[in-house]
């Protein structure tokens, strides 16, 4: 919970505010922000010697069962209204951009298989992924570029963002629905086509034939 334990000797030098005060501070910082705030950023803004992580743990308990919840998004935290009260918020509802089936599937594949290359997405879907689909997901800031794969051609990989986690109310990609079962069933393995070594050229050719651009 806490990523910034202080040396006890240092603690004695700087009088940290009482924990209840730190909890108020974390509460105020998180309330003021629409975006998730990292523990590190809270810590930076709080007086020296504060332990944002510990304060957060208390705060989270305090908001259990309330109209707003404290949720963890990746390494950051945010207040979000309780999902069961969504019906009250029609006024606040933002128009959701309708995603194409291709975009939704591509997003799911990136989330479950990340980091994943475009060729791998195409392998799974059996069709070429159009540039527009990837662009749309990048633009929505639901995916971003990960590390390059250390294979010939060093292809880029895609991974999901904190914005994605935030949007779908996930603490981390490990919490994706059914991911454990899928992994156990071997469905997230990168299983190459038997004899793919000889036929790889062929495979690429196929997906290129279908390029929608």
């Amino acid at each position, binding site marked *: 919970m806490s990523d910034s334990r202080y040396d006890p000797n240092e603690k004695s030098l700087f009088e940290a505010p009482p924990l209840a005060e730190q909890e108020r501070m974390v509460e105020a910082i998180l309330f003021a*922000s629409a975006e998730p705030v990292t523990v590190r950023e809270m810590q930076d803004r709080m007086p020296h010697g504060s332990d944002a992580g510990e304060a957060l743990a208390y705060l989270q308990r305090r908001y259990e069962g309330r109209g707003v919840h404290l949720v963890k998004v990746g390494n950051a935290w945010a207040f979000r209204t309780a999902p069961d009260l969504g019906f009250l918020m029609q006024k*606040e509802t933002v128009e959701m951009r309708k995603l194409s089936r291709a975009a939704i599937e591509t997003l799911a594949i990136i989330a479950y298989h990340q980091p994943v290359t475009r060729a791998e997405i195409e392998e799974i879907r059996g069709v070429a992924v159009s540039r527009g689909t990837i662009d749309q997901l990048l633009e929505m800031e639901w995916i971003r570029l990960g590390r390059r794969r250390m294979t010939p051609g060093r292809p880029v990989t895609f991974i999901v963002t904190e914005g994605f986690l935030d*949007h779908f109310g996930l603490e981390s990609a490990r919490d994706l629905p059914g991911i454990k079962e899928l992994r156990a069933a071997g469905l997230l393995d990168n299983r190459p086509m038997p004899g793919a070594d000889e036929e790889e050229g062929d495979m690429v050719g*196929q997906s290129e034939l*279908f390029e929608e651009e």
Partner: protein
Amino acid sequence: MAEATSLFESTSVSERLAAEALIVDVDGFEGPLDLLLTLSRTQKVDLRRISVLALAEQYLAFVDRAKALRIELAADYLVMAAWLAFLKSRLLLPPEPGEEGPSAEDMAAHLAFQLERLSAMREAAAQLMARDRLGRDFFARGLEESVARVRKVRYTASLLDMIQAYARIRTRDEFRPYAFDRRDVFTMEDALDRMRGMIGFAGDWTELTSYLPEGWELEPKRRRSATAATFAASLELAKQGHIEIRQSETFAPIAIRARTTPRET
């Protein structure tokens, strides 16, 4: 192909109607794998237990139907048809001894895996989209408070900065005017002055070294400086048309003489 056709014909009316609906809607498929997945549903079994042979036959029959109806299929559907025809023949015929490449069973198993994986991803995508979503089911803080950025300037200096600053002040009196040590430097200007005065008296070829200032040839450092300056000055004088320069071969002594008539330019 006869077998496939018969199989196609043997299917029930409703299945044939469904297959025709598929063909009409072929644009709605996202590639051959998607079509295969849809066809596999007609087998009404778990994807793990799917008969790839039957599926291949269904697919080939579908492609034949489309051809009969003069529906143009995208190239990758035809590539898949060719691959499935190959797979089908491999599945039906006993393997030839010494045959290379993956077994027909491995290929079929991989196709089944691909279908199952695609199906699983679709299911996962649906579950994901059905989750409570930000801005639809749960909401962020509406009244965001801006975080003011306060810029604070902190001045800093290193010990070296300070020591050097002090040294600069304390040694200021020792500084000479801006010049490095010129005692051993013979400048081109010096050489020009010297040569201009002498050139008029030298009517014939004279070695450049004889123009060096007296005494400078003794010390190597001074000789180098004087030689360089004198040579540079001679080039300058030649350029101005006052003298001519001659050198019989590389590294041979350089000789100069006054030009009687100024060169036309």
